[in-house]
């Protein structure tokens, strides 16, 4: 085992024993990335010198791969888009500043769907990322580079972002733990905006303990993001000591078991997860989220609407691509944007502009926000009856590269993750097993109320204790990442 095969907690133990330094860890990650990035494509850039310099300055720090839409001063930040080719970040995002204070350093930039729009990372304009468990398949998305890097042991841990499932679905596809914090738990300052009422940064890690410590490092009030409340950040990692499911009420949303298009193995593994929770002492209760069937529709109005406004800043004026064929300001805008954005981004900008345009605003955007209120109320009512919800993470295991062509079919990947995003509550993807037929990893999702990350992580940890860590599950399935 190399240092890069370790998780955060394990690496810190090695540091504590004086057996290795942060520089050794970064060197190990670099060696693995040099050897495997050609086949996995998790990273889009890696400033080795910068990472090594940070490691030398902070000899007990843990390197973290960063999704390529989070600003790190002096580093590129492409957002998976041609429009930001050559861009260099002039400042650190708050999550990066927080992370550095807590003993983590940014090391390498990982691939993503362009502007976080997608569920397979195939929308990246920069590189193809492959699933470390089967290189013919996608790693999920939009945080596919983060998931592939963690799942393929090409990093210690990673940061991703989640707007409608972009941490959780790739975590499920790549056999890792991913946490989407409650809306407002983590600052969005310096994180390129997709849909501002939904975006959250979260940890992607090899086990629940690691996700907890990394979440604790990045979370909290930021004067630069008015949506972060002044709530204390508990010591999440310490709270996991002795985590148990005994007496915990786990809610099963009855609507979710009837969702169309769910893979048989995903259903089997989810049912097994329910039994495992019951076996560990949890009380299983049925709950209802009656407006879930409208969540996809609400999301594909609200997210594109917000995206169309956020992406208006890419106009070729202050940064990013500028068309060489522009003769006046209007053509500068339309040509720079046409040349810089990919198809999915263009589709969503058009969709978002349409639902916000005069005459359609009330029927689409305003109505969607009202239905969003009803979705949030569903969760409030469900959490009056249980501590946490348990659902599948994604309807299927990882699919083949190029397999899903129709945008609407691709959107259905986020069927189980979108409702909790709209409600602003917290959720985690936790490895749960391997499909018998395809031998691909499958995760389940736990969901807790807003700012209940401590409870969410305790439930996830107790489930991990009952099920086995990602590494245990892979070994039991005789399935080590195919990069080895």
């Amino acid at each position, binding site marked *: 085992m190399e240092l890069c095969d370790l998780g955060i907690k394990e690496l810190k133990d090695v540091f504590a024993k004086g057996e290795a330094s942060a520089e050794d860890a970064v060197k190990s990650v670099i060696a693995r990335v040099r050897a495997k990035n050609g086949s996995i494509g998790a990273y889009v850039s890696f400033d080795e010198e910068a990472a090594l310099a940070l490691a030398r300055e902070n000899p007990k720090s843990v390197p973290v791969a960063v999704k390529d839409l989070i600003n790190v001063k002096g580093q590129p930040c492409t957002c998976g888009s041609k429009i930001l080719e050559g*861009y260099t970040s002039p400042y650190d995002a708050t999550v990066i500043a927080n992370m550095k204070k807590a003993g983590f350093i940014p090391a390498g930039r990982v691939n993503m769907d362009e502007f976080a729009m997608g569920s397979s990372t195939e929308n990246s304009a920069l590189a193809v990322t492959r699933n470390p468990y089967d290189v013919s398949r996608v790693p999920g998305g939009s945080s596919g580079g983060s998931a592939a890097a963690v799942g393929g042991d090409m990093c210690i841990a990673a940061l991703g972002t989640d707007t409608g499932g972009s941490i959780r679905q790739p975590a499920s596809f790549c056999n890792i733990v991913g946490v989407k914090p409650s809306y407002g738990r983590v600052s969005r300052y310096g994180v390129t905006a997709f849909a501002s*009422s939904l975006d959250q940064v979260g940890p992607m890690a090899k086990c629940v303990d690691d996700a907890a410590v990394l979440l604790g490092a990045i979370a909290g009030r930021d004067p630069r993001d008015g949506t972060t409340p002044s709530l204390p950040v508990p010591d999440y990692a310490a709270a996991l000591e002795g985590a148990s499911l005994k007496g915990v009420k786990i809610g099963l949303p009855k609507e979710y078991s009837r969702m169309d298009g769910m893979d048989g193995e995903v259903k089997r593994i989810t049912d097994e997860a329910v039994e495992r929770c019951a076996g560990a002492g949890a009380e299983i209760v049925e709950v209802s989220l009656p407006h879930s069937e409208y969540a996809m529709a609400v999301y594909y109005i609200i997210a594109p609407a917000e995206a169309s406004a956020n992406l208006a800043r890419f106009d070729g004026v*202050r940064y990013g691509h500028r068309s060489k064929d522009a003769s006046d300001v209007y053509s500068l805008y*339309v040509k720079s944007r046409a040349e810089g954005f990919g198809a999915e981004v263009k589709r969503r900008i*058009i969709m978002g*502009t349409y639902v916000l*345009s005069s005459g359609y605003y009330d029927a689409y955007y305003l*109505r969607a926000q009202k*239905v969003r209120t009803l979705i949030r109320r569903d969760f409030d009512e469900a959490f009056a009856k249980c501590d946490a919800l348990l659902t599948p993470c994604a309807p299927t295991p990882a699919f083949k590269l190029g397999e899903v062509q129709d945008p*609407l079919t691709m959107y259905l990947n986020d069927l189980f993750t979108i409702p909790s995003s709209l409600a602003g509550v917290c959720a985690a993807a936790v490895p749960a097993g391997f499909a018998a037929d395809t031998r691909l990893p499958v995760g389940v999702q736990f969901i807790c109320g807003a700012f209940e990350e401590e409870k969410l992580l305790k439930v996830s940890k107790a489930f991990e204790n009952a099920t086995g860590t990602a590494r245990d599950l892979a070994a039991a399935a005789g399935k080590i990442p195919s990069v080895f």
Partner: protein
Amino acid sequence: MKIDVAYAAELARLELSREEKDLFQSQLDGIVGYVEKISEVDVEGVEPMMHGHTLVNVFREDEVEESMDREDALANAPARTGDEFLLPKIVEGAES
């Protein structure tokens, strides 16, 4: 309801090729058709949820802080002149 792709693209300052226009038209008609299912929901008397949570009116002291260095802010400019971003002529008759 059919989406007017050409009109929305113009509002969004996005030039589309003929092929893109046709492809997006058929794809977005499907997506708009799908999202129209929210019209089934009774939203009488329901307040819209404007944000991810219920925080409202966050205030801060209006204190002077150090801001980004001018050179850093201009470093990514596609074109500049001195301390300014350089653009094609906007005002009629002015020198660009």
